[in-house]
């Protein structure tokens, strides 16, 4: 709770950033609207309503992951530079709780930005809007947020120790663009890349969101995807806890918790 209050208090000073982010959603959406005008001729199932809603859903899911990763890496690196990271680790709570506290705001903020694209999608075609869509989207964002928190925590931890986390975040973001089913259907990729793409949690998130919004599938129809996404999320959290334990032990041995 303390972390949330601190972030809200900091955010008060960053309202302009939020407004700029909203503007970027607007500009991005318009760009893809016109791009969609060019590409609406495909007969793929998820493209039956056109390219515009198709790409918005892809961007929404990839924004959640990419923004959380880069946001967590930057935030924790900033804490280390400030010296506040050491002070936070003095709290009588497990270290992973401090990381979660610092990362939750990034997940929340990225989710809000990502949901903005879903809102544009719903406004552009209100006929697809239903309770199932909204409820299912919230579940997917919740599970995707947990996955992003675990993955972001791992990369932030690596960044604190090896100082290469921001590069990893950028590489993953590029990989998401290539294999995440965001801008184009993955069936146009070579077969071996398709096999990798199918295993990515982002591809799963995008496909499930499109099933809800563009194919009007029910929650029971997507339940197997949700279980799989839950598995990814729990696995990322467990891996994160183990990796963090190892990294912080190394940093405590080397005395590099603080940059100062």
């Amino acid at each position, binding site marked *: *709770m*303390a*972390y949330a*209050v*601190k972030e809200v*208090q*900091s955010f008060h*000073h960053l309202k302009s950033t939020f407004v700029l982010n909203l503007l970027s959603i607007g500009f991005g959406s318009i760009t893809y609207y016109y791009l969609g005008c060019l590409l609406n001729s495909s007969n793929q199932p998820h493209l039956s309503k056109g390219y515009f809603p198709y790409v918005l859903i892809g961007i929404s899911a990839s924004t959640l992951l990419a923004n959380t990763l880069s946001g967590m890496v930057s935030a924790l690196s900033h804490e280390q530079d*400030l*010296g*506040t990271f*050491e*002070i*936070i*680790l*003095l*709290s*009588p*709570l*497990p270290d992973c709780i*401090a990381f979660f*506290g610092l990362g939750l705001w990034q997940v929340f903020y990225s989710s809000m930005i990502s949901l903005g694209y879903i809102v544009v999608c719903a406004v552009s075609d209100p006929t697809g809007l239903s309770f199932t869509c909204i409820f299912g989207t919230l579940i997917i964002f919740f599970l995707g947020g947990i996955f992003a928190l675990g993955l972001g925590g791992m990369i932030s931890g690596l960044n604190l120790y090896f100082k290469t986390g921001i590069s990893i975040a950028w590489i993953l973001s590029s990989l998401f663009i290539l294999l995440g089913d965001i801008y184009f259907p993955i069936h146009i990729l070579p077969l071996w890349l398709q096999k990798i793409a199918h295993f990515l949690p982002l591809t799963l998130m995008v496909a499930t969101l499109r099933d809800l919004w563009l194919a009007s599938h029910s929650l029971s129809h997507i339940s197997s995807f949700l279980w799989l996404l839950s598995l990814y999320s729990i696995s990322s959290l467990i891996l994160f806890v183990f990796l963090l334990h190892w990294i912080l*032990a190394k940093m*405590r*041995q080397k*005395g590099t*918790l*603080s940059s*100062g």
Partner: protein
Amino acid sequence: MFCNLSWSLSPAKAYILHGRNATGKTSLLKMAATLLLPDSGEVSVTSLSSRQDPIGVRQKMTYLAPHEGTFYGNLNGWQNLTFFGRIQNIPAKYLIPAMMKLADLFSLSEHLKLPVEKYSSGMKQKLSLIRTFALNRPLILLDEPDRFLDDASVQILKNLCIEQVQKGHTVLLTTALANATFEGSHFTLLNGTVAQGV
């Protein structure tokens, strides 16, 4: 950095650790605070091992960092204090009165609504001291606590240390100044070992 170092601190006493720059004073305090792990050996606080039970050790101690920038510059002094207090799991009904009392003592109350980025080095040091002493823990680790402070504030700091000792707490503070006049047992860290006297 340390060789065969064995040092035991008693409750209700103040220890002043002298030493030149780069002799390991900060490292020693960080080891006691669980921020640094020794290559070998053990640091224990009230019979709790910092290696086996770091969370238990953190519940017993409070630590003043040696650098001034351990706050969020865009938050005000009060927001910083309440954040760092909350993550220590101390109920607000104990924490807030203690912080207010200390802020009054250091004449910082009227500046607590200012963003910390506008604070002078001395004000930040006072804020660090408030954060440290408000926790009321049995072991108080202070790394060069008199840095940036004026004479009046140093006197307040000395009185606070005496008050903590009277409560039965242990105070361990470091200083690079040989003429520091804190009350307590004086030791010197040199060549990786601790010896009594300055």
